[in-house]
């Protein structure tokens, strides 16, 4: 990776409850936790970030 990559940056938020997330971050709303688990691996690969689970509704993809 080049040195210009942003560090410690939230790349995307995946959630089942959009009411709890706002702001200038791409937010993806899913129907269920299982659906998030299905997709978050793809998000990791595409964005080169790591998936973290904040609680049962909110997942973050963060570049470290």
């Amino acid at each position: 990776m080049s040195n210009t990559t942003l560090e410690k940056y939230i790349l995307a938020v995946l959630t089942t409850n959009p009411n709890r997330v706002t702001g200038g971050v791409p937010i993806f709303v899913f129907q269920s936790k299982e659906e998030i688990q299905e997709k978050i691996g793809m998000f990791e690969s595409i964005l080169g970030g790591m998936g973290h689970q904040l609680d049962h509704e909110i997942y973050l993809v963060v570049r470290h």
Partner: protein
Amino acid sequence: MGQYTLPVLLGILFGFVGRVVLLKSDYRHYPTHPHGMIIHLTLGFIAASLGSIAVPAIMEREYTAVTFLAVAAQHFREVRNMERETLTRMDQMELVSRGTTYIEGIAMTFEGRNYMAILIALLTTVVTTLSQRWWLGVLVALGSIAAALYLKSGKELGSIAEIRPARIRIEGADLYVDDIHIMNVGLEISRELIMKQGLGLILKPKSIDSVVTLSNLGQRQAILHDLAMGLGVYRDDDKPSLVPLTRRDLNDGRIAIFFLPQIKDMEEAIDILQRVPVLENAVRVPTQSDAHLERGSVHE
């Protein structure tokens, strides 16, 4: 020049032999061969020549010859830069990087060993010239090579820390090695993979000094890199959740190592860790500070 021929030849020969002996490529495969080796052997030969030729020059009262050695020092500083640059560039392409502290350490070693070649050559030539006995020169040369071999080996991790296997567990989304928190893993597949393939180890520092040394991020990266060299690494560029990590217990300075190896073998992992070099640049000895010495060993 006749009287100096043998001393100079002996100096060059043993200086070069000294460099060859100190040039060791091991499982980390550095320096690479053949070309990395050729570069360093040639430089070693040049270093040995510089060291031994300086002696007759000074004996003939050509004192400006000392500047010659200054040029040599300048030249070998370049060696350090060259190594640093190469390693830093290569580091970007490693799945588990060496880290800058490790790279500086390696670069420093290469520079230092060229100076060793100069010194061995210088000493050999001086002794042979002054004593007029070739065997005395050979003896001194062998002695100094032995001394160089003895001095070159730094400390290893096994001598400053106790290394023991530890259990990996996942609570909710949080990954722990023993009781030390490593990270939050959001992806369930990754959690399963971690439980299946992960290795956990704990380093327990043996003294206050080693607590500080082990806390160094460069030292910790070097540990991970050596593990990856020895056991392979179970991840690819797009799998950040499988990245090996070290975390530190703030209370007692223990280091938890989390690692996904290609070859899962705990005994070999411990063996590798025992031999990880303690980086010169990471070593700290707070117990040697004046403040500590004046207060006695209250904190020990």
